[in-house]
């Protein structure tokens, strides 16, 4: 009896200790995020006092005259992120549905393995591939498109191939493994009874996918897409190598542009004046806020989806 109560007590202590450790870890996570924000907010003070909110909508970035503003990079970040998402989503859905419902195991397994491999490649490799393979293709397209519309102005920045379009295409490829494998995972857990029930009622395979599987995974699909968008918005190395790193407002998809992450990575190392450094940190703050807004928006969309 005494033996038993002793082991009970040990069990209890263990449980408390585990719960305390878990709580500490959870608090640490929240604290880290809050500290990130506070740190970025405090260290960007010089820039916030100098430029105020106009930092968000002006577009001059000139380290020589110490005039800084974020709009071109915000536009570049959102354009490349959403552009990549727009292009890659149909492919991601197609791949996931094919692997879940059409491909046999012998076909699906190697493809899944390759997708995993693609997702694990360091981004600098994507960047190199982008610069040496994708960019020349985009360049050819620019020449063709320039001749087609007969407008020099559209491709006035030259036909090097680097620019927003190259970055969008590269990011679309980079986020594809993420979104497709996440969507696939959720398709695989659609209860077999539901699918079999639909088929028993005389639904075709396509009907089942359309009216049973896709609605069932809508929530996790949005989640997968938001995760992928997050990766696209924060991607730095690969984007830097193909986007052209122009600090001016891009006018067309062929223009060189820049993203918040890429601008920070490019310039932080050699930025010496306090205002310059603070402005770069404010770019990081904006990227942080964009990430938060997108996550909140995703939650709102999800909740609405559930209510309907």
């Amino acid at each position, binding site marked *: 009896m005494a033996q038993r109560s002793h082991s009970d007590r040990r069990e209890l202590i263990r449980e408390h200790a585990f719960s305390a450790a878990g709580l500490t870890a959870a608090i640490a996570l929240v604290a880290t995020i809050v500290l990130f924000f506070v740190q970025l907010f405090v260290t960007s003070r010089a820039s916030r006092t100098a430029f105020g909110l106009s930092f968000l909508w002006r577009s*001059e*970035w*000139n*380290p*020589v*005259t110490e005039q800084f503003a974020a709009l071109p990079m915000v536009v570049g970040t959102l354009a490349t992120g959403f552009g990549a998402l727009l292009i890659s989503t149909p492919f991601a859905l197609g791949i996931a549905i094919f692997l879940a419902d059409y491909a046999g195991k012998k076909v699906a397994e190697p493809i899944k393995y390759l997708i995993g491999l693609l997702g694990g490649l360091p981004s600098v490799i994507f960047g190199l591939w982008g*610069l*040496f393979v994708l*960019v*020349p293709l985009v*360049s050819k397209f620019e020449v063709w498109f320039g001749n087609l519309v007969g407008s020099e102005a559209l491709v006035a*920045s*030259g*036909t*090097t*191939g*680097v*620019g927003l379009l190259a970055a969008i295409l590269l990011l679309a490829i980079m986020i594809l493994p993420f979104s497709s494998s996440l969507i696939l995972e959720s398709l695989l857990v659609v209860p077999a009874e539901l699918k079999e029930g639909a088929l028993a009622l005389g639904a075709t395979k396509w009907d089942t996918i359309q009216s049973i599987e896709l609605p069932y995974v809508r929530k996790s699909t949005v989640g997968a897409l938001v995760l992928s968008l997050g990766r696209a918005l924060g991607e730095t190395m690969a984007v*830097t*190598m193909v986007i*052209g*790193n*122009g*600090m*001016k407002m891009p006018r067309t998809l062929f223009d*060189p542009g*820049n993203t918040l992450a890429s601008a920070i990575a*490019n*310039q932080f*190392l*050699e*930025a*010496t*004046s306090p205002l310059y450094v603070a402005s770069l940190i404010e770019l990081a703050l904006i990227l942080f806020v964009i990430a938060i807004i997108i996550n909140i928006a995703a939650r709102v969309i999800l909740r609405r989806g559930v209510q309907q």
Partner: protein
Amino acid sequence: MKNHGRLPLIAATLLMIGLALSGCSSSSQAPAVTNLSGAGATFPYPLYSKMFDTYNGVTGVRVNYNSIGSGGGIKALTDKTVDFGASDAFLTDEEEAAMGAPVLHIPTCVGSVVLSYNLDGNPALKLDGTVVANIFLGKITRWNDASITALNPGLSLPNLAITVVHRSDGSGTTSIFTSYLSAVSAEWKSSVGAGKSVSWPAGVGGKGNDGVAGMISQAKGSIGYIELVYAVQSNMPFASLMNASGKFVVPSLSSSGAAAAVASDLPDDLRVNIVNSPGADAYPISSFTWILVYKEQDYAGRTLGQAQALKNLLTWVLTDGQAINAGLSYARLPEPAVTKALALVGSMTYDGTAIP
């Protein structure tokens, strides 16, 4: 009397270094300084790592150099976390004020920036300052522009769009190049200016020398600026430039060195821009790269031993160490610059008195 006091000290230091080398330094003695640390510019990194490796072999003093960028090096020296900083551009007055104490600029080599291009057949291109400025201003947009063909009578240049490639990251290379453009073009000076990163009127940006070189090799009709060392190592074509005395000069180690050899133009503090140098054989886009140290070495609890070790290192870099430069494609310092730099090293103090 003072000199008498110093001699045993040097002897003791040497003895301690010797003991440390032979691995039997006794713990009761004050430790000899066998470690120095520096941080800064990436441009001279290959040179510094070779120099410091050799120095370690000669003296046993280990020098850790982190190539974190000039900005980082200046910050590390300001924060007093390193013995020396390294920068491709001399400190602005604002940066020097932030240091809180006088800083010495010790040049270590002369670096040059070349204009590299991608044209069929790699023609030997000749350019002058005005043309280069107008290309980078976006005013000359085609290779067969009259102002380019006028400088290259023997060549038939194509009717091809010029793509300007510049650095996207802040860099000493950009600082040197834009200083040159500001020196030769009033319009560049007023509308763009000089700095480690500027607001480029035209073109696309690549990260690092390799980024720019990669972009140039990708795009027909492109032109960009890279370090001479990098262009030589990667076999890229580069243009001859007309210098201030009206002569076309091919960038090379000797023409880079010539830019720094105009003794009368070197100020004693060597905080000087040598772009567009008046020397007859000088390549116009050249610059020193500097090691930065505090003039007064008694700060943040530093010992006299540390100050001596640093002084010895700098003296060696300016004398024996210079032999290493050419092998790694860095131009060695011309004699007048070495003399003035040694005088600067000699002016270092510890607690107000010269370091023995």
